[in-house]
C-alpha cells in the first residue's frame, strides 16, 4: 500500500494491511522482505512464538503469499496441464497442496489450489508465477489475474484456533475438515466482515487460514486478538514458522529446493519424485508439463531424494554436508533445513541424499560446523533417516477438533 506522499521508489517494500497492527506489537523491530512486502521476522521471542503455535494459537500474516485468480472455460484443463495432481478430483470448496514443473520435470514451485466454484480457482504460490502461467495458458481459454493485493490473509494456527473462531461466533467452523474451505461472516462492532476460511496451514497443526478484503483486515485482526486473549493467541514471525514447518516436514522454496525457473547451474534443480512428493504426481490423469521426463525418472528410479534426518546431539546440522561413513571420504548429500525441535526434543534436518540412503533407518554422517564464541569447531555426527513428518499431532486431522 503506497502512501501518496512517498514515491514508490522510496518504499521498495509494500506494507500489508496488517502492518500497522504488527508494528505496534513488534518489540524487536525485526522485519524481513517477502515477495515484495515487509513482514515480521520475530516479534519478541522466537521461542514464545513457537510455543504459541504448538500450545495455544498463533497469528501469522500471510498476505504476501502470491495469489492468482484462475477462471474461464478451460480453467480445469489448464490447471490439470499445469500441475502434477488431478484437479478433476478437486471439488468446489476443497483445497489441494500441489506442485508444478518445467518441461524437464523439475520443480518450479509448490502452492495451494483452491476450487471456489466450477472452473473458478485460486492458486497461492510462494513466488510470482505469471510468466509461467502465461506460457502454460497458450492454447487454453483461461483468464489469469494476480490478486495478491486484493486479498489480505492471516494464518490462525494452534490447538486453540478452532475454539477461538467459535468464540467469535463462526458457527460450523468445527465441521470444516482439513483441506476444506467455507464462507463465514464475522460480526464486528460496526459491520459484518465476510471471511473465507480454509483449514490449511504450514504448521502441521490444527489451524486455519483466513482470507478477507484488505479493508476488513485491521478489524478482523483486532477481533482475533481480543477474543484470543483467553485462548493465548500470539502474533508470530517467520522464524518461529520455520521451526514448525520443519517439524511438519514441509518444504520451503529456496531452502529445500531451488525453483527451476531461477536455477542457473545444471544439476541444482529437483523433481517432485526426488523431493518425496511422488504422491502428488498423477501419471494417470493425462498429460501435464514435465510428465514424460518424470515418467522416465520413475521407471529409472530417482538418483537422489529428500529425507528426514534425526541427528545425534542438539546442534542443528545447518548446511552440513553428509557422508556415508564417519571417515568423511564419500559425500552422499547435504542438509537443506535443520532445527532443534523443542516439541519432539529431537535434532531434525531435511536433507538431499543419494538413492542408496533413502530408506528409513539408513545411517549417514553429518559434518557440522559450530561457532562457539567465534571459535569454529567441526563435529562429525551420526544421523538416521526417519519418517516424515517428524511431528504430526492427531488434532491436525480431528473433525470436529477438541475444545482446548
Amino acid at each position, binding site marked *: 500500500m503506497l502512501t501518496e506522499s512517498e514515491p514508490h521508489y522510496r518504499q521498495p517494500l509494500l506494507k500489508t494491511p496488517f502492518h500497522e497492527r504488527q508494528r505496534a506489537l513488534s518489540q524487536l523491530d525485526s522485519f524481513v522482505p517477502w515477495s515484495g512486502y515487509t513482514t515480521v521476522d520475530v516479534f519478541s521471542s522466537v521461542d514464545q512464538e513457537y510455543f504459541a503455535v504448538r500450545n495455544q494459537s498463533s497469528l501469522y500474516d500471510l498476505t504476501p503469499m502470491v495469489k492468482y485468480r484462475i477462471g474461464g472455460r478451460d480453467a480445469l484443463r489448464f490447471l490439470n496441464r499445469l500441475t502434477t495432481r488431478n484437479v478433476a478430483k478437486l471439488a468446489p470448496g476443497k483445497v489441494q497442496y500441489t506442485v508444478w514443473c518445467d*518441461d524437464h520435470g523439475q520443480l518450479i514451485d509448490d502452492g495451494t489450489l483452491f476450487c471456489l466454484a466450477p472452473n473458478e480457482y485460486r492458486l497461492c504460490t510462494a513466488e510470482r508465477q505469471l510468466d509461467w502461467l502465461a506460457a502454460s495458458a497458450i492454447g487454453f481459454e483461461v483468464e489469469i489475474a494476480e490478486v495478491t493485493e486484493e486479498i489480505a490473509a492471516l494464518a490462525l494456527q494452534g490447538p486453540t484456533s478452532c475454539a477461538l473462531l467459535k468464540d467469535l461466533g463462526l458457527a460450523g467452523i468445527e465441521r470444516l475438515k482439513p483441506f476444506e474451505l467455507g464462507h463465514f461472516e464475522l460480526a464486528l462492532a460496526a459491520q459484518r466482515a465476510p471471511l473465507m476460511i480454509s483449514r490449511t496451514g504450514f504448521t502441521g497443526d490444527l489451524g486455519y487460514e483466513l482470507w478477507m478484503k484488505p479493508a476488513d483486515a485491521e478489524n478482523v485482526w483486532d477481533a482475533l486478538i481480543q477474543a484470543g486473549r483467553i485462548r493465548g493467541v500470539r502474533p508470530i514471525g517467520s522464524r518461529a514458522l520455520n521451526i514448525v514447518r520443519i517439524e511438519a516436514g514441509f518444504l520451503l522454496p529456496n531452502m529445500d529446493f531451488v525453483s527451476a525457473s531461477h536455477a542457473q547451474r545444471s544439476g541444482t534443480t529437483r523433481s517432485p519424485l526426488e523431493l518425496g512428493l511422488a504422491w502428488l504426481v498423477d501419471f494417470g490423469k493425462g498429460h501435464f508439463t514435465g510428465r514424460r521426463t518424470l515418467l522416465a525418472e520413475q521407471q529409472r528410479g530417482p538418483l537422489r531424494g529428500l529425507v528426514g534426518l534425526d541427528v545425534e546431539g542438539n546442534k542443528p546440522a545447518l548446511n552440513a554436508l553428509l557422508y556415508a561413513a564417519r571417515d568423511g571420504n564419500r559425500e552422499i548429500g547435504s542438509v537443506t533445513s535443520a532445527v532443534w525441535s523443542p516439541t519432539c526434543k529431537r535434532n531434525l534436518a531435511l536433507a538431499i541424499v543419494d538413492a542408496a540412503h533413502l530408506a528409513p533407518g539408513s545411517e549417514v554422517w553429518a559434518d557440522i560446523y559450530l561457532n562457539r564464541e567465534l571459535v569454529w569447531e567441526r563435529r562429525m555426527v551420526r544421523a538416521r533417516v526417519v519418517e516424515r513428518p517428524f511431528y504430526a499431532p492427531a488434532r491436525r486431522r480431528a473433525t470436529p477438533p477438541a475444545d482446548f
Partner: protein
Amino acid sequence: MVQGSRQYDAIVVGGGHNGLVCAAYLARAGRAVLVLEASERLGGAATTREFAPGFQVSACAHLLHLMPPALMRELDLAANGLKLAAERLPTVALGSEGQHVTYSSSEVSGALTAADVSRYPAWRALLERLAKTLHPLLSAAPPRLGTEAWRDRAALLGLGWRIRRLGRRDMRELLRIGGMCVHDLLEERFESPLLKGALAFDAVLGSNLGPRSPGTVLSLLYRLAAPGGPEILTQPQGGLGALTQALAEAARRAGAEIRTHAPVARILVRDDRVCGVTLGSGEELAARVVVSSADPKTTFLGLLGSEHLDAGFVRRVSQLRTRGLAAKVHLALDRLPHFRGLDPQSLRGRLLVAPSLGYVEGAFNYSKYEEYSSAPVLEVTIPTLADPALAPPGKHVMSVIAQYVPYKLATGWQEQRQQFKELVIRTLAAFAPDLPDCVRSSELLAPQDIEREFRIAGGHWHHAELAFDQFFMVRPVPGAAQYQAPVAGLFLCGAGCHPGGGVMGLAGRNAARHVMREAA
C-alpha cells in the same frame, strides 16, 4: 480409435512437396501410407493453378533449383512425368537505360567493371567450396547437443572435420564471414552496384533480413549449399505443380494412398501416443504414426493442441518467427513486353529489380514499420517463354516475387491491394515501358493470402524464418529438431524442419528416414 477400419502405418498431413516426398519414401519402404491434403489440389506452395481465364502460374514458388538430383533420381521423377521446360537459367540484374548485368554460376557479363568480371569466378569458387562443406548437413537429421548417442557425436565430429578439411585459408574465411552481413562482404569484393544488389538479393530472398542484417552470409551459403547444384535454376514444364504431380505419382506407384479435400482437424492422441487423425468431416483415421508437413505452429498448436505438450515447448513454438515478408504478383499479359536492352532469349531466366545494396536495404527498412517501399525489390519470371502452354496462344504470364511486403500493414491491406499491384507494374515499366499496356489482369498474394491459400501460419514460405536461432539443430525449436515431436508417434516433415524451405524436398526425405528408424 476407429473400430473396424484399417490402420495405416503412417498418415502424412499435407500434400505439399515435402509431404509427398516423405510419403513416397515411406511407401517405397513398404509402409502403408495415406496422404491427406486439405485443398482440392496437391502441391501446397509448389503448385500450378489458373489465376485468370486461360492463364496458369506457379502460385507460390516459381523456380526449381534446390531439389537434389539424387532425390529426383531416387523417386524417378522423370519416369513419373516430370519434364523440364528450361534449365540453367541465367539471372539478369535489371539496370536503368537498358544497362543490365547477367550472371550464372560461373560467369558474369554486362554493365559492370572489368575488375568485377575478373573477381566473380573466384567469388563463386569460394562460395561453392564453403557451401560444399555445409552440403552434407542438409541431407541428414541435425545432431542433438549434450547427448551420449554416437550418432549425434559422429555428426558433430563430421561437421568439425569437414570445416577443418577446408584448409587453413578457407576455414579462416568461413569463420570470418560466417556471422557477417552480406552487405559488408560484397563491399569488400565488388564495385558494381548492380552486381552487389543482385548478389545480396539471393541472401535475403524470402526472409525477414536486409543486406545489412547479421547472418545474411550464412543464409547465402545455405542457399548455395542446396544439393541441387549451386544456382542451377530450372523450370518444370507445367510449372511447379508438375513437380508435385510427379512426386504424387511416385508416391502412388510406391503404394501410397492420396486423398484431397481431406483437411485434418485434429491429430488424435491416446495414452500419450499419436494414434491417428480426425478429418474436418469428423471421419477418424487410424495410423501408427502421423507425419505432419504442416508448419510447426499449425501442427502443434492447431492440430495436436497444447494440452498434449509441455508448456515451455509450447511457448517456444508460439514464439517461432513465422511472419512472411514476400508476396506474389501474377500478371496475365496479352503480349510479351519489350525490356530495354534484352532480347526475348534473355527474358527466359529470372530478372531482378535489386539495383544496389542501398536499394535493397532501403526497401527492407519500410517493412520494419509495417509499410512497403515505393521502390520494391522484385524477382520476375516469364514462364510462358519456355512453356507456352501456361497461357493462351501468343499470350504470356509474368510471375513476380515482391520482397519486403509485410504480413501486416499499418494502413491495413484492404485499400492497398490494387495500389501495390500498380506499384509493381510501374516499377517494372521503368525497364519495360510497354508493360502496363500488356497487362490484361493481375493477382496479388500478400503474405496473408499465402497464409490462407497454402495454410501456412504467418504466410512464411520457409514456414519459419531461416535465421541462426531457428536453424539446423534448433529448427524449428529445441525438442522437435530431429523430425520427432515430443509426443510418441508424431513426426514433422515440412519446411519448418531442417533444412528448411524452398522446393527442396530434403525435409521430407530426412523425416522419412527418421520415421523408418524410430518407428520401424
